[in-house]
């Protein structure tokens, strides 16, 4: 396929980022939960360095194959869409391998695949081809998977793992370079859900969904390195909007090749493949366990067998799936129906120029010009799809403003001619670096507590305007208020502002509602309409309340009204107290007695 400039508009819609920073950070949103896990991870691995006591004698070598679901609306070879829907609704005849059906490469799937390859520094092949990989399985209707075995579309990429990736390398500052051997496009299989030991339900919506398989070179030598590599690849793929979801959503899975050899030996040990790891923890745990197993065998004078092994959560050792003799011969054959894929340089250039900054680059920059730890920087980037980083930035600049104001006040009030330390550091070009860590701490943790205590999914900056947080922190820093008073203050601000903004939303909505409606609509009218609707939809419940005085069931109707409000396009927040009042009136019950 060669692209012409006329093709561009359609690509544009896929690739334009209005606000590159925000957009890419939004994609990193899903990593939020992951980060939580990683925190634990790092601490664990630092407590138990992966090289065991006898680790010096042995060298561990790891290569990884990562399968990631491409973020595209099209399946790889059929006209069916990829969107989530009821099982077995997005299935074309080719996805079920109907006799006489043929594949048709969907150009749109190439865009995220190319973005991924470019972001991983790969060379894009002008021509690539598709091959069939044969094996029988229930989730594979054709008896083969279409992949790129002989001629993949991208080769020779590179990934650098450094301090900001949580890698501690002996000999400070040294980075680990991981080569990307190749990336290939391939089909996903149907999704199997085991009902019981003999029944599997198959959802063919996933069959034919485009995947990329990223194959690294065996350049990693510890479990944390492998984890950092997968994590970084994942964040890069999400950063360029190439993949659907991270590991925790099943959008990414990895096969890991592990070998152990005596440190003195120049050659690699026998490679063992561990298949289907779909969380970062399982990658680390499986590698550590496999390393132990192989060292034990070698130390006892045994021989490691080339085989495929599996890992399940909670186990202490990998388990053998099949040995060399049971190895599947995939009988790779060029697919005779699919013509070679020709990728034009113009398309590559276009996508290259359109590639946004990657999250790891932002993290690196943040660490470089502040005193934030890489971990804090990563967390800021990951929280609220990047909104928290923007908020942090605003608080920081408000803080700087306050410092400048107070120092100039200080100067005018003071007879001392010596400039304050803050001004000194500013004139030296340093931007109050020492306080970044403290500000980040409040933005991440204190605000985090408030948000989680209020059961909110994300932090709304309006609930603690940046200038308010900045002045609270400033007061605390100047010892005008204590740390605990500062916390109380923050909590009060958060509570009132949250309440206010909620009220504001109701008011705004009502204003809009009455504007758009020709009749005059009052709040009462709106509530009574909703109440009437809910009551008529639940005649039984209404009966119980009216005639059997089962007042407890009122709450059920209130819940329905709230749900009703949320379900609307304009998502009206329904006040439960008002709802109950109106419901009572509609049902002819006495008004609620307030204490």
């Amino acid at each position: 396929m060669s692209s012409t400039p006329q093709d561009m508009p359609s690509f544009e819609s896929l690739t334009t980022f209005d606000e590159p920073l925000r957009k890419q950070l939004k994609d990193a949103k899903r990593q939020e939960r992951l980060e939580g896990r990683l925190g634990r991870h790092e601490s664990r691995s630092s407590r138990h360095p992966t090289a065991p006591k006898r680790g010096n004698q042995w060298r561990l070598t790891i290569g990884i194959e990562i399968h990631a679901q491409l973020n595209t609306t099209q399946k790889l070879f059929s006209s069916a869409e990829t969107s989530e829907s009821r099982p077995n609704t997005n299935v074309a005849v080719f996805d079920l391998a109907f006799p006489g059906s043929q594949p048709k490469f969907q150009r749109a799937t190439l865009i995220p695949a190319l973005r991924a390859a470019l972001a991983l520094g790969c060379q894009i092949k002008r021509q690539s081809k598709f091959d069939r990989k044969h094996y029988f399985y229930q989730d594979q209707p054709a008896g083969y998977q279409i992949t790129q075995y002989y001629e993949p579309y991208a080769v020779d990429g590179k990934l650098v793992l450094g301090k900001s990736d949580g890698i501690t390398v002996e000999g400070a500052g040294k980075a680990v370079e991981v080569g990307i051997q190749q990336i290939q496009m391939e089909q996903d299989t149907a999704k199997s859900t085991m009902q019981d030991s003999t029944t599997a339900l198959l959802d063919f919506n996933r069959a034919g969904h485009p995947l990329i398989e990223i194959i690294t070179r065996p350049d990693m030598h510890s479990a944390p390195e492998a984890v950092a590599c997968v994590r970084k690849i994942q964040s890069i793929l999400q950063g360029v909007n190439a993949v659907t979801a991270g590991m925790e959503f099943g959008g990414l899975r990895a096969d890991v090749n592990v070998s152990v050899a005596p440190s003195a030996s120049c050659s690699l040990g026998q490679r063992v493949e561990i298949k289907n790891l779909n969380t970062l923890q399982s990658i680390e745990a499986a590698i550590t366990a496999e390393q132990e197993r192989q060292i034990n065998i070698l130390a006892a004078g045994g021989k490691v067998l080339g085989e495929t092994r599996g890992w399940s959560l909670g186990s202490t050792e990998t388990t053998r799936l099949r040995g060399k003799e049971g190895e599947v011969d995939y009988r790779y054959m060029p697919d005779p129906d699919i013509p070679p894929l020709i990728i034009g340089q113009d398309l590559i250039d276009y996508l290259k120029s359109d590639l946004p900054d990657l999250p790891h680059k932002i993290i690196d920059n943040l660490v470089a010009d502040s005193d934030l730890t890489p971990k804090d920087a990563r967390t800021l980037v990951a929280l609220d799809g990047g909104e928290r980083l923007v908020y942090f930035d605003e608080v920081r600049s408000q803080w700087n403003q306050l410092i400048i104001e107070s120092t100039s006040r200080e100067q005018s009030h003071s007879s001392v001619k010596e400039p304050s330390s803050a001004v000194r550091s500013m004139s030296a070009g340093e931007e109050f670096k020492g306080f970044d860590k403290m500000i980040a701490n409040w933005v991440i943790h204190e605000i985090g507590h408030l948000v989680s205590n209020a059961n909110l999914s994300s932090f709304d900056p309006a609930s603690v305007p940046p200038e308010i947080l900045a002045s609270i922190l400033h007061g605390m820093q100047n010892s005008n208020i204590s740390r605990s008073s500062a916390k109380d203050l923050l909590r009060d601000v958060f509570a009132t502002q949250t309440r206010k903004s909620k009220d504001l939303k109701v008011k705004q909505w009502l204003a809009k509602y009455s504007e758009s409606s020709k009749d005059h609509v009052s709040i009462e009218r709106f509530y009574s309409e909703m109440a009437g609707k809910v009551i008529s939809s639940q005649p039984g419940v209404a009966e119980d309340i009216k005639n059997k005085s089962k007042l407890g069931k009122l709450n059920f109707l209130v819940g329905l009204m709230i749900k009703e409000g949320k379900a609307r396009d304009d998502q009206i927040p329904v006040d439960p107290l008002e709802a109950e009042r109106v419901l009572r009136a509609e049902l002819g019950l006495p008004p609620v007695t307030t204490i």
Partner: protein
Amino acid sequence: MSSLLRQASRHVTNQVSLKALNAFITPPSVEGAFADELREEKVSPGDEGLSQSPIKGKVIAVKDNISTAEQATSCASALLDCYSSPFPATVVQRLKDAGAVVTGSTNMDEFGMGSDSMNSYFGPVKNAISHDLSAGGSSGGSAVAVATGQCHAALGTDTGGSVRLPAAYNGIIGFKPSYGMISRWGVVAYANSLDTVGILAKNTIEVGRVFAMARGYDSHDPTSLSEATRLMIEQKLGDHNSRKEARQTALHFGVPEEYNVQELQPAVRDAWICTLQRLQEAGHSVKPISLPATKIALSAYYVLAPAEASSNLAKYDGARYGRKTNNSRNTGDVLYSTTRGQGFGEEVRRRVLLGAFSLSAGAIDNYFKQAQKVRRLIQLDFNRAFLFQHPLMDSIDEGVSEADKVDFIISPTAQSTPPQLSELQHMDHVSSYSADVLTVPASLAGLPAISVPVSMVEEQASTGTESTPIGMQITGQYGTDSAVLSAAGMLESLFTKPR
């Protein structure tokens, strides 16, 4: 009753009386909407003007590996017995749109694997001329149905000669177009890179009429030639012809020395010689040419086709396609092995195993990859021989002077007359593969080729023997389908016109 309906009814009557030939798996039917239409004389041959489709109202049967929306598509396999496709093949839809009555699915070798139409779950097909002879395969049912008037024309599929060989054995025309001319969407794959929908009819004109309606770009088939490519080929061919016509109108026929194999039956060799004589008498030139890779073509074919087949037939594992058998526990715990072991016929099992072997890690370099190289050599052989440059390949100067090049290649379609069924039973399987030796090269190169029946009236009169059909094969350069059809029409006339 309109004449079309009469004609159609005659086909059905023939089908009933000739049931013993076993040409059909699902017999044709002219009941229902079509018959009503004919009765109401909405379709009549009288007003067959230019605006009218030449195949309107004609009964066309299709091989049982071509999907229709109405009837089952079994590929003559137990595994697909009672399988009905939810969508029709594009070629079927095109013929219907042109007014043809597509009905009846014809018997064949299972999944197209065979040269005698003996490997069918529904029993063997009998030759139209003599019940003791092979009908040819794998489109034997289509050939016999046409030859015996059970339909007007029929579609077959030709992977290594499966349309041309049965046409030759039953004394009719069998045409394999260039690869990519007719859509394969809805045609159950045997070996995709070779599979070609072909047309069988009693004369070249009818073949041409069906072909004109059947061909065309189909976005569902990734190997279908695009409109732009078709136009480009037409233009190149037009330029070529206008240059040539300025000089002369006679055609150049090449006679490949490698096709004059030792196994060629004397009767077939005689028919070939007779054909060459008549061509010369008609003012055309006949030249010896060389296609050196021919010798290894058959071996390459029997590596490539089974390899693709082993892949294409992997889907019949009993999970979705094919019958699930219950006693799978006995066979090493592999769910599908009983289904496949019992469902596939012997020849299909043989080729699937052969293909799986030649693709296996230890063998692919020596078999599959070598065969692919041979295929390329065969293409180059043909390119050296033809005057018209391959429209989709870069021209290379091969040092063959234009005077030695030809418009068409003429050879027998098969090295023998239809073999006796009794002989076939004693033949070992691999030597039966040699029936395809003269048809396989054009398949590997994707070239248009047609089998034309030649009958030698004088010779038969002198010896007093029963007429046994012999087919002559005309092969043209890629994309010269219409030229091949008109050359076939010319050859046909040399044997039908009183001289």
